């Protein structure tokens, strides 16, 4: 393609950053407020899709050498692992716990194991969405 899409490329450079920030915010606010791994994952995946659209897929694939099939598999594995872990501590499958910790910059912060589960879901969603888009676009 020889279209002069300089505007699209410049804008998407900035927009991708905003989308990623928003996605990570949604992901972190997940378990108490609207948001979570699924929605955060979708938003982050949309940033990747925007990059694939505005640049060609070779450039992005060189910059991001990730196999998205394996990323989604890893996500499922992570989510499952967080569900299995409590079984070794006498809890039920998928049981979660949380605690409050004093962190250097953030002060008193709530850390919950559900974040690990959500991270697995987010990775799975990112992997699946990007994989679908790539499979369609790479088709001859």
């Amino acid at each position, binding site marked *: 393609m020889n279209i002069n899409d300089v505007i699209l490329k410049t804008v998407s450079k900035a927009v991708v950053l905003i989308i990623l920030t928003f996605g990570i915010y949604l992901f972190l606010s997940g378990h108490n407020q609207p948001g979570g791994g699924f929605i955060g994952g979708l938003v982050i995946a949309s940033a990747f899709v925007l990059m694939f659209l505005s640049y060609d897929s070779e450039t992005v694939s060189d910059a991001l050498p990730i196999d998205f099939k394996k990323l989604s598999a890893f996500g499922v594995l992570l989510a*499952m692992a967080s569900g299995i872990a409590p079984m070794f501590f006498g809890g039920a499958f998928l049981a979660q716990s949380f605690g409050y910790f004093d962190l250097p910059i953030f002060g008193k912060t709530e850390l919950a194991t559900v974040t690990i589960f959500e991270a697995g879901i987010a990775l799975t969603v990112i992997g699946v969405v990007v994989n679908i888009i790539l499979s369609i676009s790479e088709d001859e």
Partner: protein
Amino acid sequence: MNNILVLPMLFPIIVGVVLIFLRTYGRIQAWISIASMALTAGISFYLLHTVQTDGIIRLDFGGWEPPFGILFVADSFSILLVLTSSIVTAICLSYALISTSKELQTMYFYPTVLFLAAGVNGSFLTGDLFNLFVCFEVMLLSSYVLLTLGNSKRQLREAIKYVSINIVSSWFFLVALAFLYGTVGTLNMAHVAERVAEVGQTPLLTTISIVFLVVFSLKAGLLLYFWLPGSYSSPQIVTSALFGALLTKVGIYALFRIFSLIFYHQPEITHTIIGIMAALTLIGGSLGAIAFNDIRSIAAYNVVIAVGFMLVGLAIATPAAIEGSIYYLIHDMVAKALLFLLVGTMITLSGTSKMAGMSGLMKNYPLLGWSFFITMLSLAGIPPLSGFIGKVLISSAAIDNGSYVLLTLALLSSILVLYSLLRIFKNCFWGETIVSKEEQLPLRRGVLLPCLALVVLTIGIGLGTEGLSLYVMDAAETLLNPDMYIDAVLGTIQ
């Protein structure tokens, strides 16, 4: 804590995900997946014994007590099915190891089969209606992949039909769930059952139950089986064996569960409709089985007949009939997998699926022929094979209940099953041998081993009915006394 209860679903998923990373190692994948399904079968066997000693067991996910959280519940009925489906999956996988091309093995075949097994086991175990929907979807998504693996035009055509019909029925499922949730305010099966019993099954609830009936009939192939013969006869041999053995059984399980646990207060409406649908299924399936000359289509129509037969048991709903249906459900998983594997092997050997293209196979492959013979007898219900006890129990229950129309149709369909398979046996195995001994395709070493394992299983179930009866009677008792299930889920909140 009964965390072991989640393993029949969790274990295949984890192994399947790990196998995605081992994509290029076809044979290692096969061995790992066979071992994992064998282990799952072992776990289910242990669970079956635990249920006998401790009664119905449940696992509340994340410690959220019912009716607030999602849970898995194991009674004898569900665990028996989990056990059978795990064993059958393991055997089908070993057939895939021996016969399938390397190309297919690296296309995520084994992970997908494991996800399918996880969906099936989850559907049997779950105690929550929405979770049932999710497990159905896990199973269906895997079946879409398995159906389209390969590259024939026919597969694509059948897959489009199969996917669209299942998306429509899943949508109906969601609508039914929404109606039910709007009416009784819960989706926990035991809680729904309790509330329906409290307020009585009003006309509105009966209507909702009929929406569920339509949904599960589509999945089980009860009357709404128009999609089934095409999609079960187009994919790879192993895939159609797995589909024939497992997929419709999940729909049948759901029908049994819903109409014995929740909507059993108006049998004169719901169970009559089920009876009529079962009768029509028997007629349609029998016509299909004797009409076709393509042996895979005949096998697929035999699946339809069996669905009708099992639902006759639910329509009659006496203890003997339910017991008969459970026996038949277990028998049919084994026998249908065996039938599809044998038919597939015949097609591979002769290069055609038309009956006219095969003749005198018995001379070239005697073991294959006699395995087919035993399968035929088992499906027709000849003692001492596994199909016998189920047919006897359902028939005698139909006589006691005075359901003579259902009885006649059930017995006639058995004769037509025998006739349709006898036609294959006569045309393909007897007759003039077309291919001489020198020119025959060699039967790959070990291809028949999985089939023989299933033959041993069908003989074993037939001879070991005495040992099995303990579990089946318990399963039928739980199905007919919904209070046992409700008590186990809601009664003992610690």
